[in-house]
């Protein structure tokens, strides 16, 4: 529990309504969308409405050595918002104003709590879009997606969040406010601090303002679905489409386990004996789109797709998308616990990756469904299990280890879009090597010497300890010890 004095100060900063300390309210911030993590209640939750309030809260936390956990909508999949050490969860959902839409410079400036879809709705009337679209567009905040550098279903053609963030306002651990970047397309003044904070998962500072790039909305699109009886052919199709100089906005894959789960869950008439389904969408200028769609269909045919469908209407498009949308919830229904990974490999290694995943599944006697953004190599191997089954969870852990080793062997990465958080921290060194981790640790130390910003995330716990002990005289404080501090 925080002392009365701290709570009183928080209330004097944010007002009674926006400081939560009752256990019933704190429960709501003890988890996020990550499966199989125990709940951890914070000691207080604050919901600031302005940068100034954030500054005040951060300064107070610094004085009292209280950890702060930034949180948007709490939809991340890597345990990024779990308040491991109690402390204060700082929620940005009430900082939700769109400050400006600049149609001339094709930018928008928002507060961090704006929901991604809300921004898209607001710029639609200018004929513009903000392309990064994680599966959670309708819920995730701009701050959360920038902090995670979220990807989404259009990553192949349009890139991910970091390709759109042009400027940031960040409240640093000492309470100073940093402004980096701006509206200019070109900017090489100094280090690229915007990129540094993008994807920093709340460990380097609290993002309080974001300027993003917008692009003209594509005028036309075509959606297609191809079913394959052979995984290799599906994989070949992916690389063939791209080698024919077509870059689809969306190029998604569902494997057999996923197809069967979706069919069982949603009954939409998918061929359950198929090995893979590809969902492909091309968009852009009408004439170009029609040409590209013809190329895609031709490639699918030549690769021997068992069946091919192209949507003629919006309703048909929705039908084709239904399978992809249902993938995650359908898999979630099969077993009590779902461990969702996002190991990513170069596109050309997709067949090897999927086969490797199948081998791992049989080796450890696990059910693994794989779906995801095949076009950019970002797969979501999803292990279906039950946390209460200790023996199986041990196998799951070993399988996850192997999945990451496999991805790295194939020249890939631990996480394509979900972030490291606490879930993948222990694998960090495997990818970065000691030198890489050391560089990151120094950056972290320089910006957050007391280790108060989202402690326990990205860096493995041991690393985190070293960090906080590095600062003379400041040890990790237990909540009780903290009370003694000024």
């Amino acid at each position, binding site marked *: 529990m925080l002392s009365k004095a701290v709570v009183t100060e928080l209330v004097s900063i944010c007002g009674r309504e926006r400081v939560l300390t009752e256990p*019933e309210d704190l429960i709501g911030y003890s988890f996020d969308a990550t499966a199989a993590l125990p709940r951890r209640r914070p000691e207080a939750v604050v919901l600031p409405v302005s940068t100034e309030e954030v500054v005040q809260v951060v300064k107070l936390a610094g004085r009292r050595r209280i950890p702060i956990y930034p949180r948007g909508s709490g*939809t991340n999949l890597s345990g990024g918002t779990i308040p491991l050490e109690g402390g204060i969860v700082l929620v940005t959902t009430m900082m939700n104003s769109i400050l400006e839409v600049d149609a001339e410079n094709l930018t928008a400036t928002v507060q961090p709590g704006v929901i991604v879809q809300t921004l898209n709705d607001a710029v639609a009337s200018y004929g513009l879009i903000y392309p990064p679209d994680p599966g959670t567009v309708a*819920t995730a905040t701009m701050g959360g997606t920038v902090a995670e550098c979220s990807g989404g279903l259009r990553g192949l053609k349009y890139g991910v969040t970091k390709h759109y963030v042009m400027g940031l306002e960040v409240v640093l651990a000492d309470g100073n406010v940093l402004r980096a970047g701006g509206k200019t397309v070109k900017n090489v003044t100094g280090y690229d601090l915007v990129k540094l904070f993008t994807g920093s998962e709340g460990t380097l500072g609290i993002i309080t303002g974001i300027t993003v790039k917008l692009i003209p909305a594509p005028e036309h699109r075509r959606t297609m679905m191809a079913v394959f009886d052979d995984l290799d052919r599906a994989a070949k199709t992916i690389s063939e489409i791209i080698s024919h100089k077509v870059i689809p906005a969306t190029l998604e894959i569902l494997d057999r386990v996923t197809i069967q789960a979706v069919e069982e869950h949603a009954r939409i008439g998918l061929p359950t004996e198929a090995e893979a389904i590809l969902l492909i969408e091309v968009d852009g200028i009408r004439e170009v789109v029609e040409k590209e769609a013809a190329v895609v269909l031709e490639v699918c045919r030549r690769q021997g797709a068992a069946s091919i469908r192209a949507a003629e209407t919006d309703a048909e498009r929705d039908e084709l998308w239904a399978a992809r949308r249902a993938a995650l*919830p359908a898999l979630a229904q099969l077993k009590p616990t779902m461990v969702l990974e996002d190991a990513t490999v170069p596109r050309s290694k997709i067949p090897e990756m999927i086969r490797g995943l199948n081998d791992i599944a049989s080796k450890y006697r696990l059910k693994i469904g794989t779906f995801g953004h095949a076009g950019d190599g970002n797969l979501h191997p999803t292990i279906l299990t039950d946390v209460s089954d200790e023996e199986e969870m041990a196998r799951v852990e070993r399988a996850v280890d192997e999945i990451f080793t496999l991805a790295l062997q194939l020249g890939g990465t631990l996480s394509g879009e979900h972030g490291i958080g606490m879930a993948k921290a222990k694998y960090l060194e495997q990818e970065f090597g000691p030198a890489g981790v050391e560089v990151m640790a120094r950056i972290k130390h320089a910006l957050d010497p007391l280790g108060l910003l989202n402690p326990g995330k990205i860096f493995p716990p041991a690393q985190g300890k070293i960090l906080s002990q590095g600062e003379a005289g400041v040890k990790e404080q237990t909540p009780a010890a903290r009370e003694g501090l000024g």
Partner: protein
Amino acid sequence: MKLRDLAVVRAEIDKCMKCGNCQSVCPIYFETKKELGVARGKLTLAQAALEGELPVTPAFAERLSLCLTCNACVANCPSGVRFDRILLAARAAAVKACGLPPVKKVIFAGLSHPIVFRAGLRSGRLLQPLIFKRHPRKRANYPRFPLGLDRRRIVPPLAVRTLREELAEVNPPSDPVLNRVPNQVSNQAGQAANLTPDRAASRPARPRMRVAFFTGCMINYIYTETGRAVVNVLNRNGIEVVLPSEQHCCGIPVFVSGDMGTARAMAASNVRIFAGAQIDAIITACATCGEAWRHHYPELLEGAEEAEQARELGKKHYDISEFLVDVIGITREPGLAGAISSMGSTGTVGSTGTVGPTTGKVTYHDPCHLNRGLGINRAPREILRAIPGVEFREMANPGRCCGGSGSFSLSYYDLSMDIAAHKVADIQKTGAETVVTGCPACRMQIEDALNRHQMPQRVLHTVELLEMAFEPLHDESRGIQEPRTSAFHRFLLR
């Protein structure tokens, strides 16, 4: 009892993958932006209680009261989590652990004893002019002094005669209700012409169907004109309408608060009362009452003596709009054909000499419990589109909750009005002069919200607008007219 079975709720809770999708549709979360506003947060609170992490306390109950039971989360949950069931189970647990809050205790004791309830509302009616000051423009009252109601709130007056006092228990089609309504003789010249005894006599004497009308409290005590419209429209279609006089509150307000014992007793009593009647269908015009008959009674009474009867009656239940469209068959071409021909008319009704004498721009609000609860959203629109002269304009997000939700608006009036403000804005954008909806509770909320925003639109039940098509209180220059209110209503408002 199934709903209280911990294991069932636990399975439901376990289905939740904490994805947060419910945030994108929850009207409470839109306003509060706090995790305990949305299904995921309340569900996790219930989970924590089940797992013994937290005791069930009044604070727990209070968090669970922060829900409109609009079921938008249920409809949008990718994992199919029945949050409604979890909420009820958790509320029931709270009632068991800490009892009902004192105010609800008194109200529910009243609701569950029809005689007390009726007497209570009656005395309310007599005191009404003292307590409320009349709103200058609308048929509605502002509270004069706080009665636990918010002072800014306008509340429709209680009818001086309840619907069931006003109408006979049996209303055969040859005896249209309109003939007996006190204010029938309107000041609009020529308007009585369509209801001459001649015409009445020309209607089929033998009813083609016999239905029971479950009025519910709001229609019986407040919006009696809706009830008259139901009986009238059905009569005009050759259907006999019975209003079993013993019927009482559906009990859903008690049910959603978690007082399962009382709710079950009320369900059983209503089922016994209606099981006796020889009827083809049970009709409701209130979305919540409809849900009671179709879903909640059969579930609540599972294993009880009345279980079989409850299931049978549930199958016979129709919302009035659904009954008119799907059973009677109101069709668009040629304007109201089904309904009109069944009254033996050739489509020359009223002083204008044409069918469908209502005009004006109309928009429709989907009550949560009708739309998501009973899956009824097509029928009311078909009715509106079938009325010639009505220009139907769909509003944005017609299915978004208006924020009323029974006692929620009493406990959280400001929040409730913040939620309603979005509805008001959506209504305004349509340019409609009349808002139609299918539930008296939504009507009350929308009337109140429109008033607060100083908006001129009037709110009607679907069946009232339809009744006007039969029974034109029509004046070209003014569009759709106010529905008939009782003479006493008018007296009260003078």
